[in-house]
């Protein structure tokens, strides 16, 4: 073919535009949260009637077990609703929300991160405190290096880890150490509390500071050493519905459930304290 046929060229141009559009649509479709479609209508939600669809709940990493249980219980009593959990450090979740992630509910492990979200105008309901937590020293099972209190964390002969200062568990741990007047001989700043706990479980770290609930959820794989009241801190967990919530109704129902008697029982079973 030496001379190009203008009509043919036009057609192939139109064709390429079509392909481009199809490509963009494919990308756009996969960008949406896959779990957001309403569940199959085979079994309509008899309990609540109108509620349906999915909600995306961003919860602090330290709430992992609690929100797994809460979501399961909520889904059992609200048949049409599918709860999708997005679990990470509160500060990472905050950044996602500030960047416009389509989140319905935010449960933070501290006030600071929740306040930043509130200040940005992204919250439309709450925040409400729904649980409290405390700190403990976590050590590998059997406490091989014989840790007895916060002062042992100053010993450079032990391998000591904390959460990074930017993450709530790291911030609280540093406040607790400051109260006790101890400078930790730190060997690592872990990105979140689960990463810290894993290294303690494996015995790679001799001690770290985590939440009471984390030691409990490790079910014997780590041991907890009490931190006395005078050196401990009280941690509030606030929860809020977001202004950009794609499913505001179900989001409100989920928050009410978390704050209900039934929710409180689930939270207390995992070591949290009622507000």
């Amino acid at each position: 073919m030496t001379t190009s046929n203008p009509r043919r060229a036009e057609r192939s141009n139109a064709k390429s535009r079509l392909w481009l559009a199809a490509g963009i649509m494919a990308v756009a479709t996969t960008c949406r949260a896959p779990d957001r479609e309403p569940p199959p209508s085979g079994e309509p939600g008899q309990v609540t009637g109108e509620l349906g669809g999915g909600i995306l709940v961003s919860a602090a990493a330290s709430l992992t077990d609690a929100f797994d249980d809460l979501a399961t219980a909520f889904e059992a009593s609200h048949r049409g609703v599918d709860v999708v959990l997005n679990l990470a450090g509160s500060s990472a979740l905050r950044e996602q929300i500030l960047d416009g992630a389509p989140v319905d509910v935010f449960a933070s492990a501290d006030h600071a991160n929740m306040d930043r979200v509130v200040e940005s105008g992204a919250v439309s309901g709450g925040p409400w405190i729904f649980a409290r937590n405390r700190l403990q020293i976590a050590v590998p099972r059997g406490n091989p290096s014989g840790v007895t209190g916060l002062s042992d964390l100053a010993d450079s002969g032990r391998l000591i880890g904390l959460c990074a200062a930017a993450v709530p568990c790291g911030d609280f741990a540093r406040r607790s150490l400051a109260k006790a007047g101890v400078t930790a001989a730190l060997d690592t700043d872990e990105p979140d509390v689960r990463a810290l706990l894993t290294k303690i479980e494996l015995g790679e770290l001799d001690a770290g500071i985590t939440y009471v609930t984390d030691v409990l959820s490790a079910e014997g794989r780590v041991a907890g050493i009490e931190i006395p009241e005078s050196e401990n801190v009280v941690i509030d967990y606030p929860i809020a519905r977001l202004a950009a919530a794609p499913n505001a109704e179900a989001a409100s129902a989920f928050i009410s459930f978390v704050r209900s008697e039934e929710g409180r029982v689930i939270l207390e079973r995992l070591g949290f304290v009622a507000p």
Partner: protein
Amino acid sequence: MKPAPRFRGRRPVRRPPGLLLALGGLGLALFIVPFVGLLARTPWSDLPRLLSGEVATSALRLSLIASISSTGVALVLGVPLAWLLARVDFPGRALLRALVILPLVLPPVVGGAALLFAVGRRGLLGGPLEQATGLILPFSLGGVILATTFVSMPFLVITVEGALRSMDRRYEDAAATLGAGRWTVLRRVTLPLIAPSLAAGLLLTWARAFGEFGATVTFAGNLQGRTQTLPLAIFVALESDRDTAVAISLLMVVVSLLVLVTLRERWWKAL
């Protein structure tokens, strides 16, 4: 005077097909748009202050030490391994090849965890190692280098192995016929022949090591000045101090581009 066409039937330069242009352009946008985003978020006026801070300078130092060291280790261990895989026929070679490439496809976190189980303090070899030498790899610079080497060395091995397998072995045979010993053949014939691939492999290895995050944070932890490389510093800063995170990200992009562009111009043309 117009230069005459070099050979008959040469096609006139035409516009590339629309479909290729559209898809190729979309592919290019996939690479470029994120960097434009990064540049748009860069706090330009604060950049000197942010980059001269303790966090950025110590992380850059550690990143350079770790990536160059692991490239060195990969050179010393990876080239012999590639030679064995390419030249020695033994049962289970296909499986070994797959094992060597595994770190390329495995999530780096898995690699880091596997290293903990093997050479962590309570690991298979780590316990005896600590008892014998007092050496603890996790939470140390040595641990960072081990983790980055684990993740990046496969690039060197597959590049060099591929070159060794596809090269024309008659040159080696000819040299041997002319009386060159095996070592001389390797040094004077084989290595010069695969030099472009070796250079490309080293470059890819360095680049992968420079950007390593998952295996490092899992195995070696994260402590500023000891184990916190640039990617770790970015990850931590993203949550607390976004300007610093963006500044360090830009630093990584610039250093990587500089190395890739200059070295590729010099060495990589052959590929």
